[in-house]
């Protein structure tokens, strides 16, 4: 039976799916080009025309004696106008539209050259998605790394980095609640232990196993006999955020193994007495050989003795 035939479960039309995807893309494209911009909705990040005179921090703090419960500026951030630009117009009008809020470019002007973590920001995932430094960092904060502090009710024990990440990445937050997950919601690991929020994940140096083997050295080998996917990319079998299966397997056994491997009747129908080749897979055989392949192939990542990864 080929893949294109009906196997007894409803299938959505391919044309329908393609049309839906195309329409969605078109809608986003049209909206992007045609929609009016409600400028008052967003903080200005460009220079205020006509504002050239600096008024000094004392003038600013006369009104802004506190920002989010803190002294408005820490010593290492200079004065207000080094980031917000000349405050002349704003001091007169007190209109929020007359003051500039720093863009990522403003932050990078100081923070780029001295931090290797910022080298690939300009082409990174967050920048390409329109995330700005100030979406995650609050330059007026006193928290470590100036991180914003959203509290997630379902992650009370998670660290500050994680609480911030899952405030946007709700899909990942849900996966971290599944039966098998990295202990992130328990606070033992942080999103930033694996992810570089300033970087470009497409070009992260190192192969597909480099990141995982930084903590799981005992799976990295080098093996004498190795399971090829282990050498290539851990995510061929594992989903790091969370799964219903044990050991973060992307797909439960035996489905994960059987989708690639054929099974020889000469071995996998041999229970007690060998069954004839081609016998139907009955209950006895299924429970012994078609439940968890790694019960026998326990050295699934690699072995020093057995090319069949059984020890």
């Amino acid at each position, binding site marked *: 039976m080929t893949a294109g035939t009906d196997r007894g479960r409803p299938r959505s039309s391919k044309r329908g799916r393609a049309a839906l995807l195309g329409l969605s893309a078109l809608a986003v494209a049209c909206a992007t080009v045609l929609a009016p911009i409600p400028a008052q909705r967003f903080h200005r990040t460009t220079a205020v025309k006509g504002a050239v005179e600096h008024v000094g921090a004392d003038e600013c703090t006369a009104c802004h004696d506190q920002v989010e419960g803190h002294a408005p500026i820490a010593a290492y951030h200079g004065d207000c106008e080094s980031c917000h630009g000349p405050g002349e117009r704003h001091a007169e009008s007190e209109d929020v539209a007359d003051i500039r809020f720093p863009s990522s470019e403003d932050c990078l002007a100081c923070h780029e050259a001295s931090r290797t973590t910022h080298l690939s920001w300009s082409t990174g995932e967050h920048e390409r998605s329109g995330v700005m430094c100030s979406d995650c960092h609050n330059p007026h904060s006193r928290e470590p790394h100036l991180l914003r502090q959203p509290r997630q009710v379902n992650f009370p024990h998670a660290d500050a980095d994680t609480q911030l990440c899952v405030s946007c990445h709700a899909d990942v937050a849900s996966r971290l609640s599944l039966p098998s997950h990295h202990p992130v919601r328990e606070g033992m690991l942080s999103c930033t232990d694996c992810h570089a929020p300033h970087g470009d994940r*497409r070009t992260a140096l190192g192969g597909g196993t480099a990141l995982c083997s930084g903590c799981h050295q005992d799976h990295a080998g080098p093996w004498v006999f190795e399971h090829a996917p282990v050498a290539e990319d851990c995510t061929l079998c594992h989903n790091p955020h969370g799964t219903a299966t044990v050991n973060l397997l992307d797909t439960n056994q035996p489905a994960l193994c059987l989708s690639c*491997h054929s099974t020889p009747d000469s071995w996998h129908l041999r229970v007690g007495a060998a069954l004839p080749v081609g016998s139907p897979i009955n209950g006895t055989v299924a429970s012994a050989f078609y439940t968890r392949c790694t019960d026998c192939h326990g050295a699934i990542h690699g072995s020093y003795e057995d090319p069949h990864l059984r020890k």
Partner: protein
Amino acid sequence: MTRSMRSGATVIAMWLLPFSALADVEAKWSTSVEAVVKDFESPVNDDDATGFFDLYEFTSGKSYTNPFQLGISDLDLDLLGAQETPLMQFRFQSPTSNLSLTGSNETPFLNQRADLFMRPEGVLLDLDYRRMRTDELRLFPNPSGIGTETASRFNDDTSAGDRFYTQRTRVGGAMRLRLGELLEPRGQPLAENLPEISLRGRYEKRDGQRQFRYMLDSNDWSSPTSSWRARTSKLDQRVGNAGAGLVLTPGGLFTLSLDIDGESFRENAPAYRVNQIADPGVIPSTATVNFIPDTDRITGSAQLQRRFGERAALYGGFQGTSLKQVGNFTPNQLAAGLRDNAVRSYSANAGGNLMIVRGVSANAFFKYDNRDNRIQRNTMLFNPSTGDPNQTSPFLEALEELEAGGELVYRPQSTHLVALGYRGRWVNRDLDFADPTGQVILPTNTVIRDDSNIQQLYLRGRARLLRGLGMSAEAGYQSAPNTGYIRELTQAYYFSFRGTYSAPTSHPLDFALFGNGEFGKNTDFQQRSEAPGFSNPNRDFQRSNYSYGVTATYMPRKPLTLFSSFFQHRDAQMFDLVRSNAVRYLEPTAAAVSFFKDNPLDYRADLTNVLFGGTYQISERTEATISYSYTHSNSHFEGNNATSNTLRDASKILSDIHSVDARVGHWLADGLRVYVGYRFDDYLDHTTVPAGTDSVATTFDRSTRQHTGTLGVTLTSALLHRP
């Protein structure tokens, strides 16, 4: 007070000492002391058994009627200088385990973390400490394999009292020296070219126990109960890392980062050898069981970046890594002279973006990886002509991977963009197939192939359309002329989207909708037989993998906030189960292998996660929070054929997790707060696996219910500064 506690206190005091001499230093601190009492319901209220909720939350003395713990759950300390500038910040959390008053006190502090950030002039010093324990569920019901019926070949040598877990303790840190501040003003010329020097290090200790499953060869066992075994193995690992880096900005032309890092990994637990396994009739062997190598890894990297204002940015890098087996070698390795077992990897990347005209830009990237594992192959371990054991499977000697792509971006406003992009991935695998005169897998019937060639074309966009309404989306098409694995899709559509809406009303409503998915197939894999006239079944694979969800926060009136989230995931995979009359490696010399299709399998995984709750500010000093979460997992074989029906029960996952969390806190005075909490967790395992001959998946009820009560006191520095 234990020795480790005394050491910790001494170190902290030493850190604090220099700051105490500073006149204008303000200290802000807060800490919470918690008493936690638990109640476990059967059947997992046993210290020797790992229940579901023990996986990530170890409870010492679980067998007590009500395990009781007391300890500091968190401690924050900030030393602030002028303008509240942080000089030193200390964060400590011990969220799930404290000083146990019931049960063993051997390991009282689990699941802890601490971070120390120090910012003296010109120095950034970050130190961290982590301690965590994760348990594994026993895969077999008990050491005797109860539930398996007679004549089983399974023989579990683990003890009923063995728990399988890993306990990690880690200390590490990084120090960055800012020469511009350290050498001011005389060193400025140097600092302008060498702004930063960094040093870093880490040490981790891992202890625990694992359940190894393995299978002996037919010549290693004499009775059916000896071949298929499980064994408790100690885990005793030490990992040390050290590294250094420079950031160079010669003449301000570009930024160059140079780093070198070394890692030492040692597994100190002894590896078993087949002849050490006490079982009558076992033939002594030099073969080891689950040998884990000690390794040294050295990584060096260089990254370069240059920005041209807002118009363009370029970066590129190179990394080389050597991972080498050191220390103990297996007897068979030594006999084969295999002492140069190493993997060498090289990686290079480049990327950049360019503003073509205002509003229109382009970006591109590439990444190249090369992994070389050309170990000495002309040995008795591999060469079938010199004896057994020998290589049967293809060996991945080298791997080359290139990923590249680019986008054309139109950004009419800072909040709007649309981009048309392309990315491709090419993989070339150098597979070594053993001498076909022996019993080996051949290129014709292997399940891994030399090349992958995967191309994607996509459109993505982001827009903030109306007041408070924003959305982003990406949709693309994938085509793969060559695939290395059947699970790589030859044709696929994928999408992702996220929409947010913040209603600008007096009753704030924040709403987010998100989703992603991939739908595709691989119909390009054949299971081919060497023998003429035999069938070559196509291994069709189809996959629909998608998820979507919604989150909402609503404040109907000032003291009340409601929140909720919903997440649904479905993974549907259809493929043909392919069987053969004999093992693939018998072809062509020993037997003609005939492949044939069994019934198609339709794997389905459905996951649901729901959360809702609210917070209520009862008075100025009192607030209450309550939440409920539900997680449903259902993984099984769908379809209606003999094979699916048989496999369904043997490999099903069907569970529900319910959790209710309630907490009330009250500020008795400035800087003094008390809180009480109650948490109910219920894990319901609905799998009912029928016991059968030789079954390993016998009924094994993992359902667990636990109640947790908390009484805590929070103290803050405001207590000492009351007017």
